[in-house]
């Protein structure tokens, strides 16, 4: 069965530190990849997406992610975090052959200390 794994469940770091969240998926076909973010008390919102083309994609708020097909990975990065980046981050995948049903990873809670 298809699955999405986020290996870090909780991350605590200080402001200005760099952030990298891992995401691996187990699909064999062509995929669309997403990172969603849920700030405290807010809706789940799209941070960035990859459909095709340049495997390094840039999203909102200084985030970027790199699709490495050979590693089945789509890791999220930010060079310098802010306190406002405290949130829960979800990686999600759709298999193009299966329409647009999202499969989510378990999420990573990120706490940025001021």
């Amino acid at each position: 069965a298809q699955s999405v794994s986020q290996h870090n469940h909780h991350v605590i770091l200080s402001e200005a530190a760099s952030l990298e969240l891992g995401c691996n998926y187990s699909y064999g076909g062509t995929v669309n990849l997403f990172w969603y973010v849920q700030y405290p008390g807010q809706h789940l919102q799209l941070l960035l997406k990859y459909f095709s083309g340049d495997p390094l994609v840039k999203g909102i708020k200084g985030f970027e992610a790199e699709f490495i097909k050979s590693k089945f990975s789509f890791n999220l990065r930010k060079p310098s975090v802010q306190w406002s980046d405290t949130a829960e981050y979800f990686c999600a995948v759709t298999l193009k052959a299966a329409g647009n049903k999202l499969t989510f990873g378990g999420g990573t809670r990120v706490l940025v200390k001021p």
Partner: protein
Amino acid sequence: SQTIHQWPATLVQPVGSPLSLECTVEGTSNPNLYWYRQAAGRGLQLLFYSVGIGQISSEVPQNLSASRPQDRQFILSSKKLLLSDSGFYLCAWSGQASYEQYFGPGTRLTVT
């Protein structure tokens, strides 16, 4: 612009009672609609999706059902709630030809 609404925002129900959660979308037509459940520490699990009125696909066997009586209305129901139905329920929509999904504010359900 498109908006998505869910109500109620929070709900506390006893075991064995019925459930009805509503989701409506504004500003678009013929959307795909989705119900997810978010359990603590377990990410989001797709429960149901719908590509049109009356068309419901269930992703996991469970105590819940879904209906789509109107184009932009999606309802999640149960005849008798179980303790295990507690969780955070999210509705989402996408365009028919789009892979991006947009989420509502969610309903926190506590079954006591």
